[in-house]
């Protein structure tokens, strides 16, 4: 039985609009964006957890909340049993050494005036209580560059000299610099060409094997999540609508949203062409979500109960859960 790396319990992250002076003067009410709305998940140690959903479903906010880049309203985030929400600054610093993020826009998170070597060395210099090892940093940077299959020459180059794929590798090198236990990868291959994306996926799988890292893989690319993730969750409007082992979710998708999402993914192999389930309309605003089930406004199977009652996550067996009244026998 795999141990739990991260347990999220009933996590809520709301954003408040209209708190400012102008809105008060002009009498606009407070608007609440339900970005993450009561999410519970367990990410197991040494595995890859895929988080999928369309833009605006709250998957990035959920990831950012885990790192307390955004403060949650309520809920618990247990990192190896310790609640991240309750950590003070000192504990947070320690936590953020063990947990790292690879951001989507790698160029945006590199200082254009620093060389790749300096960028990768930064986390190493931040490491506390190891002053005597500081002189070895140069050596460590070269080892890290090696680990992500970049030339040692790359250390003296500036970000603008790198291609998209190389920049991504630097992001990976920086993330693994402090031997983290957990890495969140937010759309790690978006904007990359097919063969470049494949090299990044291979690299991250190799690192996972060598260093026993747990990944939270945030992506809207379902083909990739199917390939990379052991477990996965599908989010819609800030809620998890289906969660389970990736294979189980793909083979026996239970939620109508998951079915539509997976059917809409274009496949190269004509044998895998499925009848696309077209969802009408667009994702409703998270400021004013529909009553009952959030998905009912676009759901082809919606019935009366969906409007009145919010569906709970129902256990379908084998760790597969789905929040839909179609599976609710109570």
């Amino acid at each position, binding site marked *: 039985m795999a141990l739990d790396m991260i347990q999220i319990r009933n996590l809520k992250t709301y954003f408040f609009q209209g708190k400012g002076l102008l809105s008060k003067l002009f009498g606009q009410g407070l608007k609440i964006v339900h970005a993450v709305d009561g999410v519970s998940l367990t990410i197991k140690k040494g595995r890859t957890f895929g988080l999928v959903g*369309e*833009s605006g479903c709250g998957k990035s906010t959920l990831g950012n909340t885990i790192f307390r880049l955004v403060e949650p309203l309520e809920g618990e985030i247990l990192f190896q049993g310790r609640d991240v929400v309750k950590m003070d600054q000192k504990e947070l610093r320690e936590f953020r050494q063990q947990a790292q993020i690879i951001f989507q826009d790698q160029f945006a998170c590199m200082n254009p005036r620093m060389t790749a070597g300096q960028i990768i060395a930064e986390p190493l210099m931040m490491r506390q209580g190891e002053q005597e090892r500081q002189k070895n940093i140069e050596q460590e940077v070269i080892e890290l560059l090696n680990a992500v299959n970049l030339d040692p020459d790359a250390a003296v180059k500036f970000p603008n000299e790198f*291609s998209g*794929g190389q920049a991504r590798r630097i992001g990976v090198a920086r993330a693994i610099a402090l031997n983290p236990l957990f890495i969140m990868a937010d759309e790690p291959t978006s904007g990359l*060409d*097919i*063969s*470049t*994306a*494949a*090299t990044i*996926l*291979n690299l991250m*799988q190799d690192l996972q094997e060598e260093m026993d890292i747990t990944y939270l893989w945030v992506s*809207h690319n*379902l*083909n*990739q999540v*199917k*390939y*990379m993730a*052991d477990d996965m969750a599908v989010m819609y409007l800030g809620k998890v609508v289906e969660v389970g082992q*990736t*294979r189980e979710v793909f083979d026996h998708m239970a939620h109508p949203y998951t079915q*539509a*999402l997976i059917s*809409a*993914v*274009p*496949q*190269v*192999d*004509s044998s*895998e*062409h499925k009848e*696309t389930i*077209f*969802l009408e*309309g*667009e994702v409703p605003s998270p400021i004013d979500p529909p009553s009952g089930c959030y998905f009912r406004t676009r759901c082809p199977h919606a019935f009366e109960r969906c409007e009145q009652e919010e569906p709970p996550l129902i256990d379908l067996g084998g760790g597969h859960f789905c929040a839909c009244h179609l599976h609710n026998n109570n």
Partner: protein
Amino acid sequence: MSEHLLEVNNLTLDYNLGSRKMQALGQVSFSLDKGQVLGVAGESGCGKSTLGLAILRLLPRVAEIRRGEVLFNGTDLLKLSEEQMEREIRGQKITMIFQNPQNALNPVFKIENQMIDILRVQEKYQNPGSRKRRRDFKQQAIERLESTGIADPEARVSNYPFEFSGGMKQRVMIGMALSSGTSLLLADEATTALDVTIEAQINRLITELADKYGTSILYITHNLGVLSEMADRIMIMYAGRIFEMGNTEAVFGSPRHPYSAALLESLPSRQTKGKRLLTIPGIVPALDRLPSGCSFHPRCAFAEEVCRQEVPPLIEVDKGHWSACLLDQKRGRKKWHWT
């Protein structure tokens, strides 16, 4: 005279950047029939967008077309005057939609004003003596919006672009681009920025409207999955050249060029979990430093001496299936197993 709607012959195009000369398109030849969807795929920098822009002659000044012709209904577009292009072709018979509809819509004007502008120009060139009023154009704009599936078009037409979501903006672009007069639509990464469920909606809309008006589509994208579902025929490009071309099932089912085979093998959707993905060694070459012979030879696992020396011509290797690989042509039908 040819019966093809579009026939591109030997199109060769350079970008002149000071002392550097980059060949962006090299002897590109293909044809597209009425009502057909031709998919153009390839990695960034392979010239697929340049091709679309070259057909409409919207290239930057540094581009120089060195050879070739672009026959549209038998007329060489490269020989038309700028005025003729503007009056008869652009936005009339050939239209284009881009990846980012945000950039194609002016944020400070209402959707109706922007649509009416287009309709007015189209009307001016199609019926020079027309006395249509603004009212009529607005009605027409509403009809176009309605045809793209936007709910409540009477109200939405007076919105500003920021009030539309990405998918809706792309619908507006399609509404402007596709009408009964359009014979050819160039779609350049039209759905790349959209979520999969919205992408499916937009692609369905493009297909429906194109069917209705008998419009042919040149569908440019790097997403092979989308092409597999949209295109009748596929063209794989690399470093400005066509490497392979043929029916969708043929190209994806039994690729005749090692590069196409490698692209397909590097897709996660084709691989089971835990198995390594194929990666092509090296990177796409810079266009001003193209390797000798076949531009793919430094990265190709099968390359032989002859690949370094000769530029492979695009040859019909099977009925309607073209490939530009000397080895394939020498040995005949062969499967390219990279792993």
